[in-house]
């Protein structure tokens, strides 16, 4: 790629950042129309877009930006006042600018002459010239014997665009088994090209059966959107220093995979090193362990992205949506700096969007209805994000009409989910909202579909090992809380043994480890242990999981804390710290209470990862459990 191309691309990135900032600033300006700093900021951004655009051949963009810049020049000098019409027009103009940056030809007349409302809530994901493909090239063994040189083919692919090639030599047999006239290598190729799939197929036509071509996410250049494929380059400050580097996110994924495998192997090394009697090997193994930990932490940090990257666009979406529906709604975001693993954010983004749309569409009442109910005309949706132990919590609270338990009951009876005589608590009724196909909205609006889809949200979040909870106060509003783990990949845990089985307790919730001897409360149904004067419920894991054998009367307990509650997990033995790569359990095991995943130990065995939150709930409800005749009396 030559310098002109490179320069053009950098301009496009810069322009996208500027339009994202412009949007946010305009929304702020709406609330503080007199703020000179905001006005100045808008003017400067437009000025930059105008100037750089002309440099890199974006003629139409440049002259359009100039028009808008003139408006803000007048506003800045006081000749024009900021009105709602001007804000609306400016936002439409920014949309147009985004389109022009992406080079989408638009046959519309200059937006400055119309007062259009941007009807679409989703930002336009226009066609970008660069596409990304993942090519798996697995030549058959006799490919040389057909006169084909795989390297020529790879070189031909390189001519189509920027390429990253990785040779996989796992298929290479030992020397005695190897036929030098056969090909045992595979290649994974990541290609960024302006050409299409057919161009690639042309290149590989003679080995087409040996190639798997997949197009992955196109390089999006939407303003403010989290990039699913990012252009490699450096972003420069005004002083010309390089402060940060953009990295293709699939490079991070690959790095993460490698780190995950390294973590597993390092655990094995440690086991072997401690069983050998060689101090030198042991020291080396400890060093490797320390470095692996640091590497793991650093890599995980690389993937952490603040929630603010998605919440930014949400404010605009809410505003536009509300306008279409004739309502007044504002979105407040707190905790935007809370960080989550990049993949996790991408996965929960659609759920958060769905919940918020639901709020605007069904939850928040129209201004007249609100006033009649004694509320402020403008509805408020409050998005709060924060970390809670090993998880991130996102709470979306609206002050709308909440959920009517009576209507839920009606719907549930009608749908045959409960009978007319069943009496359910309000909470239980609320939970029905998550049932598939459930909806109390009689009409389907064009905006967010039915008020249903919460079952989809729940399933989706649970598949991420998260949870969804709902609270509602009829007439006052509703809160939906999503909780997801910080990252899916690696956790650090405490390895314990119960009977013949090994379990992993996530280290983030472990508070202390105690000896159970003498600490049991004598008799009684309640399983409570006395820790320095405080009563802590406990669960005997051997019993809970129905494992064989009697306790050895020498049990230990891991005391775990989740928010304000504690629970003790009684085990036979602590084995030690353990870093693990989490492997999810398939559907068959999903409903086992208290297990959230599995991992492979250094010796090849399997350890199950405990779902401490679930166990804590079980312990707190211990009164409802029958003791089943087993004696739980320990003598000091």
């Amino acid at each position, binding site marked *: 790629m030559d310098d002109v191309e490179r320069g053009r691309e950098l301009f496009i990135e810069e322009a996208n950042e500027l339009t994202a900032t412009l949007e946010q600033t305009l929304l702020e300006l709406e609330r503080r129309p007199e703020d000179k700093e905001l006005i100045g900021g808008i003017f400067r951004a437009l000025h930059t877009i105008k100037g750089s655009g002309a440099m890199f051949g974006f003629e139409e963009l440049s002259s359009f930006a100039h028009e808008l810049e003139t408006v803000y020049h007048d506003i800045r000098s006081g000749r024009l006042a900021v009105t709602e019409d001007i804000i609306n027009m400016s936002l439409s103009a920014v949309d147009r600018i985004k389109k022009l940056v992406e080079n989408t030809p638009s046959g519309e007349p200059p937006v400055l002459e119309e007062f259009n409302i941007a009807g679409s809530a989703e930002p336009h994901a226009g066609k970008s010239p660069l596409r990304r493909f993942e090519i798996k090239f697995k030549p058959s063994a*006799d490919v040389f014997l*057909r*006169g*084909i040189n795989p390297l*020529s083919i790879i070189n*031909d692919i390189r001519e189509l665009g920027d390429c990253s090639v990785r040779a996989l030599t796992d298929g290479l047999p030992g020397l005695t088994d190897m036929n030098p006239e056969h090909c045992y290598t595979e290649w994974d190729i990541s290609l960024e090209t302006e050409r299409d799939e057919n161009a690639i197929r042309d290149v590989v*036509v*003679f080995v087409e059966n040996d190639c798997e071509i997949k197009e992955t996410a196109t390089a999006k250049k939407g303003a403010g959107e989290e990039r699913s494929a990012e252009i490699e380059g450096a972003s420069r400050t005004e002083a010309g220093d390089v402060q940060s580097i953009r990295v293709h996110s699939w490079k991070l994924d690959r790095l993460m995979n490698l780190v995950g495998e390294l973590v597993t192997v390092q655990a094995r090394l440690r086991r072997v090193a401690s069983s050998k009697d060689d101090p030198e090997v042991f020291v080396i193994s400890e060093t490797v362990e320390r470095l692996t930990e640091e590497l793991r932490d650093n890599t995980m940090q690389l993937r952490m992205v603040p929630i603010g990257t998605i919440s930014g666009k949400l404010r605009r979406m809410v505003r536009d949506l509300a306008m279409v529906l004739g309502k007044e709604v504002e979105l407040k975001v707190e905790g935007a700096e809370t960080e989550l693993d990049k993949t996790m954010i991408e996965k929960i983004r659609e759920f958060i969007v769905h919940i918020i749309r639901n709020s605007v569409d069904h939850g928040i009442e129209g201004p007249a209805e609100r006033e009649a109910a004694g509320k402020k005309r403008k509805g408020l949706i409050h998005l709060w994000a924060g970390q809670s132990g090993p998880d991130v919590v996102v709470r979306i609270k609206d002050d709308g009409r909440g959920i009517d338990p009576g209507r839920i009951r009606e719907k549930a009876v009608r749908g045959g989910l409960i009978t007319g005589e069943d009496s359910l608590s309000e909470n239980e009724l609320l939970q029905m909202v998550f049932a598939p196909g459930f909806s109390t909205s009689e009409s389907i609006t064009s905006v967010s579909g039915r008020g249903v889809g919460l079952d989809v949200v729940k399933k989706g979040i649970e598949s991420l090992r998260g949870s969804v909870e709902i609270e509602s106060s009829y007439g006052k509003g509703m809160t939906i809380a999503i909780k997801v783990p910080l990252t899916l990949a690696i956790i650090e845990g405490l390895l314990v043994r119960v009977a013949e089985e090994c379990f992993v307790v996530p280290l983030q919730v472990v508070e202390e480890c105690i000896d159970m001897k003498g600490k049991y409360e004598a008799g009684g149904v309640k399983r409570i242990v006395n820790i320095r004067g405080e009563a802590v419920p406990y669960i005997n894991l051997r019993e809970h999981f129905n494992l064989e054998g009697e306790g050895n009367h020498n049990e230990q307990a891991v005391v775990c804390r989740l928010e304000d509650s504690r629970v003790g997990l009684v085990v036979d033995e602590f084995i030690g710290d353990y870093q693990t790569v989490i492997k999810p359990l398939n559907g068959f095991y999903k409903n086992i209470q208290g297990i959230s995943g599995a991992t492979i130990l250094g010796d090849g065995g399997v350890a199950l990862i405990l779902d401490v939150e679930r166990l804590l709930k079980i312990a707190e409800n211990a009164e409802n459990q029958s003791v089943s005749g087993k004696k739980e009396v320990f003598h000091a």
Partner: protein
Amino acid sequence: MNGTIMAVDDSASMRQMVSFTLRAAGYDVVEAVDGKDALEKIGGSNGLSMLITDINMPNMEGIELVRRVRENPQYKFMPIILLTTESRGAKVEEGKIAGATGWILKPFKPEQLLAVVKKVLGK
């Protein structure tokens, strides 16, 4: 000199078109009228860089020619291109199994021929 390419086809006009195109691009071209003729000429030659052959020919058809050529250790890895009227047909598969590198679909333009030759002979 870019190397010697052999063009095998029982149609004189096809042979002529292939030779003309490749010679203009700097290759030496040897022509043969069918498989048998091709093998004889290969035996007496100084070495081929590439073979381009039609499939339907008298005396020995193209795919059999490919097999025979592959039996010669000197030409185990030499590029061999089939000229065919159907790109995904059974003949092409048979050709691949026999050891052909690839194919060109008839009718083709001179520049398409050159593109394939360049691709297959490498840079």
